[in-house]
């Protein structure tokens, strides 16, 4: 079995110290795997991502990179690359694509101009190298952010809502590029996103988050009921692969206030809990 590149153990977090945004969330991610994090607004997806990348500290729980516990004081930023939302970019500075790629040179001094061009080529944005980032479309900006994140050849790529604001063709293009990188370099990928169908299609594992409610397991074990419970609404067009669920799993709602990821495996039925009355 491939080794774990990222593991979260019983992560809890609250912004005000009273209302929990995350409670005992655990998951792990192996080399070449992808984890999609789904959930409604305010469910704690971005908070979890910010904890993983060290921008927020959890109230309790630990993060492990390559089985090494992340130390808050010397956070192992070299173990991953993070792609924030393109809307977080400061639009006041007139930064060109080439200049933005050059910022990475401040940290990774050995990177050559040729390697940077190759990365821009990989994400299909080389022809916009001398354009201002502010003049690019949302999808192009996201690809520039992705290219910059690939400068240090990361083993783990973390993306915060990469498809936000993109049309379906833009989403397909971006996720195909991520898929290509994943397959080529065996990069583990964690994606926080709202696009349920795209995430289900592209990720091996799914973590559904809605504050106390969370479900984490293989994509094939995800049911429409689970998603409807997470989002508190009904879905009509979900591309969930539900084969074999009839024989091995209950279709009951899954409700819990703890994480029980990995209780179910492909060999034994997943132990869904019944909805509390």
């Amino acid at each position, binding site marked *: 079995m491939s080794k774990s590149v990222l593991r979260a153990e019983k992560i809890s977090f609250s912004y005000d110290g009273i209302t929990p945004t995350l409670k005992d969330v655990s998951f792990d991610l192996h080399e070449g795997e992808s984890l999609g994090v789904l959930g409604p607004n305010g469910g704690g997806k971005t908070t979890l991502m910010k904890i993983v990348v060290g921008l927020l500290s959890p109230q309790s729980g630990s993060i492990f990179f390559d089985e090494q516990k992340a130390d808050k004081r010397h956070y192992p930023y*070299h173990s991953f690359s*993070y792609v*924030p939302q393109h809307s*977080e970019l400061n639009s006041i500075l*007139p930064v060109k694509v080439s200049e933005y790629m050059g910022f990475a040179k401040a*940290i990774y001094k050995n990177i050559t101009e040729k390697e940077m061009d190759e990365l821009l080529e990989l994400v299909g944005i080389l022809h916009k190298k001398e354009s201002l980032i502010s003049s690019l479309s949302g999808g192009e900006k996201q690809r520039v952010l992705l290219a910059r994140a690939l400068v240090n050849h990361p083993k783990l790529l973390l993306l915060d809502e990469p498809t936000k604001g993109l049309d379906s063709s833009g989403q397909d293009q971006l996720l195909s590029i991520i898929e290509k990188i994943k397959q080529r370099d065996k990069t583990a990928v964690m994606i926080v996103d709202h696009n349920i169908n795209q995430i289900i299609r592209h990720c091996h594992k799914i973590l559904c988050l809605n504050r106390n409610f969370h479900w984490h397991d293989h994509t094939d074990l995800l049911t429409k009921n689970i998603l409807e419970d997470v989002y508190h609404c009904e879905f009509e067009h979900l591309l969930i692969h539900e084969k074999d669920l009839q024989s091995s799993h209950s279709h009951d709602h899954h409700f819990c206030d703890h994480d029980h990821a990995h209780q179910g495996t492909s060999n034994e039925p997943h132990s869904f809990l019944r909805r509390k009355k």
Partner: protein
Amino acid sequence: MMIFFQSLKDFLQYDFLLYALLGTLALSMTCGLISPLIIARKNAFMGSAISHSTLLGLAIALSLFSAEQSLSIFATTLAITIVCTLFLATSTFRQKLPSDSMIGIFYTATMALGIIIHSLFAKNKTDLLSFLFGNILLLTKEDLLLSAGLLIVTAPLIIIPFKKWLFLTYDEEGAITSGIKARLYHYLFFILLALLIVTSIKLAGTILIETLLLVPGFFALKFSTNVRQAFIVSVIFSTVFAVLGILIANAYGLPSGATLAVVLFLALVLSLFLKKIYTFLRS
């Protein structure tokens, strides 16, 4: 025009005016270098808070020393301003609450305290006015050395890690998660700002120094087509119009801080107006 050339001749003829000219050159270059960062990092209000909190330092310094003891006044004002700046920097680093509310509360409080201390303990109550609005006639050789020293310290601290400053300003989360120490740069930026403001008090005054800190960067970011150009344009704009400002101030016997502020503002407004006309003619 003649009076303007006479003013230029005065600056070369009299030592104290030459100090003022060279001091203005050094300070305006430093302001031009840091100005785009102030605008892009959305720290305009923070700069205003630091410049107003110098009043507390000045009031304490003028209570302890006479206005002629310029180095003692500078050191005391700087020490107190840096303490205030560190407090502001700590309470505004990646906070959820809007930092402008904290800054607004803080700077009015320090300013009020400064006025009370000045009215109770100042050795000469009229001195404060010169520091509020600037007076180039107060500039001494020591002030010139301080201004030059500040440029020598500030320029490498901005230019050597230039890409790190830009990365942090443009994509803060990307920069932090790439390993750039955002907290260190946050504090460094505000300490440089405090140093610059305290050193510029005699030239432009605690109230009008904001013009030198904001207008060049605003102009440069409005007209530049890439980020490197923005910093070069900002330094040139700041230097040219600051020097023009003190030449006009001397020629017509006007207060230096106010003249600087008006010259920089007029240059900005005129450029924006010309840009509008150019855009209109091209469309």
